[in-house]
């Protein structure tokens, strides 16, 4: 069963993330990919995440596909204009990649090539529209193509963005541009997320809640301070603190597992997207404790 079919059948789906490394040594990445094999519905492959130059998401998506994973190709608009994006999408399609996540992408200012010229010829909403045209068999200009694509296209949303109204307006635009599923920014407050889901459920799209594994109280404080749209409530930070230094990661795994269980049992959303950020080897443990394995 594919990621798309699973979502459409109403199953609770689980995705995680693989970040292509910087450089050609992919041993560690393959090791993590092996650990996750058979456990996930799909795996996101990030596209030069945080504007740090790495192996392209397309190549790694293909490698993972050959290993038996179902990749979700992340595509940002930062580094390619509309010709490059469409061309890479066609390439992904003939390589057998079925899922694409359309994003605008972090500004080069965040990364390790600050002098780069940012492209942003189009942006997330428009990229979704482009995928929709390719799926219908024409390029974005309406030119006939010899063979179209058959992508399952998704997008991202930040349910705790502040202010929220412009974010929700953009969410609606993404839906009308053809987004079929969403993976959210990390959420930690299930009650607030449930409110967001009340809004999101009025649209014909599937929502995967973003779960970022907390590794320490320091990490939580850092994200609260520096990562837009992430709010880790104080009681969770205390829970990790009280567990003591050695058990901080374990407490983080428990929190992630508990949230996933609640999201599934209370049927709050359609699945979760687990981002372990450097602790990919812990994803199976999170899933086990959440009762998913």
């Amino acid at each position: 069963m594919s990621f798309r079919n699973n979502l459409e059948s109403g199953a609770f789906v689980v995705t995680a993330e693989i970040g292509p490394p910087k450089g050609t040594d992919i041993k560690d990445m393959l090791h993590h990919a092996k650990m996750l094999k058979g456990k996930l519905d799909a795996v996101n492959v990030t596209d030069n995440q945080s504007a740090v130059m790495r192996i392209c998401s397309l190549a790694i998506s293909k490698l993972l596909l050959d290993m038996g994973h179902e990749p979700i190709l992340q595509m940002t608009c930062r580094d390619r204009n509309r010709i490059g994006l469409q061309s890479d999408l066609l390439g992904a399609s003939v390589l057998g990649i079925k899922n694409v996540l359309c994003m605008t992408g972090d500004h080069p200012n965040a990364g390790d090539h600050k002098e780069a010229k940012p492209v942003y010829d189009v942006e997330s909403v428009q990229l979704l529209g482009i995928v929709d045209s390719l799926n219908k068999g024409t390029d974005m200009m309406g030119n006939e193509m010899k063979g179209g694509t058959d992508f399952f296209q998704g997008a991202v949303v930040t349910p705790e963005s502040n202010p929220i109204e412009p974010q929700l307006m953009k969410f609606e635009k993404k839906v009308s541009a053809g987004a079929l599923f969403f993976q959210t920014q990390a959420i930690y407050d299930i009650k607030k997320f449930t409110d967001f889901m009340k809004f999101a459920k009025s649209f014909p799209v599937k929502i995967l809640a973003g779960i970022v594994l907390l590794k320490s109280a320091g990490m939580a404080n850092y994200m609260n301070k520096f990562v837009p749209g992430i709010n880790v409530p104080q009681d969770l930070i205390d829970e990790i603190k009280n567990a003591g230094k050695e058990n901080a990661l374990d407490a983080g795994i428990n929190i992630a597992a508990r949230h996933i269980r609640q999201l599934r049992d209370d049927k709050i959303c359609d699945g979760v997207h687990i981002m372990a950020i450097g602790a990919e080897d812990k994803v199976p443990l999170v899933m086990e404790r959440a009762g998913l394995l």
Partner: protein
Amino acid sequence: MIITKKRDFKELMGNIKNYKSFFLLGCSECATLCGTGGDPEIKSMKEALEAEGKNVTGSFVAKTGCQVLGTKVELKPFKDAISESDCILVMSCGAGTQTTVELFEDKPVYPTNDSMFLGNMTRMQIFDERCSLCGKCILDKTGGICPITACPKGLLNGPCGGTNDGKCEIGPEIECAWVRIYNRLKRIDKLEDIKNTAEPKDWSAHKKPMSLSAREKKSS
């Protein structure tokens, strides 16, 4: 106006080290307002060059340095001072520099400024970028705030995920353009202006080099 910034003097000296004598040309418009090409700046440039053992044969502040014919007429009385100089230093924007290149084909011409952006002076000597000259203005659809310029990603359909309490992901010193646009349209009850998806921008309206004739076509 065109916002200019003085080049580092050492960098400038590196560029012109082989020349001895100079004619200085400023501009009374933007460069004067920016403090990069008016009378006081010409005076201090002259002093700085002389302190380096260079010679200044003459100087002039053009009325509008990007107006080619007008500048040509204005510079007539300086013919001798210009021909005595080894090269011309232009203290205006890149357009003014190229006026001079066009008028003095046989003379080396060097800019003393970097041209930064098209913007407004919001307070004395404080400048903010306002327009990227995209060739097809969309201010009518964005509450009069330009997202192509004010949003570092030039987004057309709302804020990115990096927007943070009204600030931009690039840094807290930048207001998120899309929060500003949203708030302004809400205030004037025109949010419907941004409800529809903006299609990918037609950048062919900005194919370089651009050129435009504003002359009335003679009706035949």
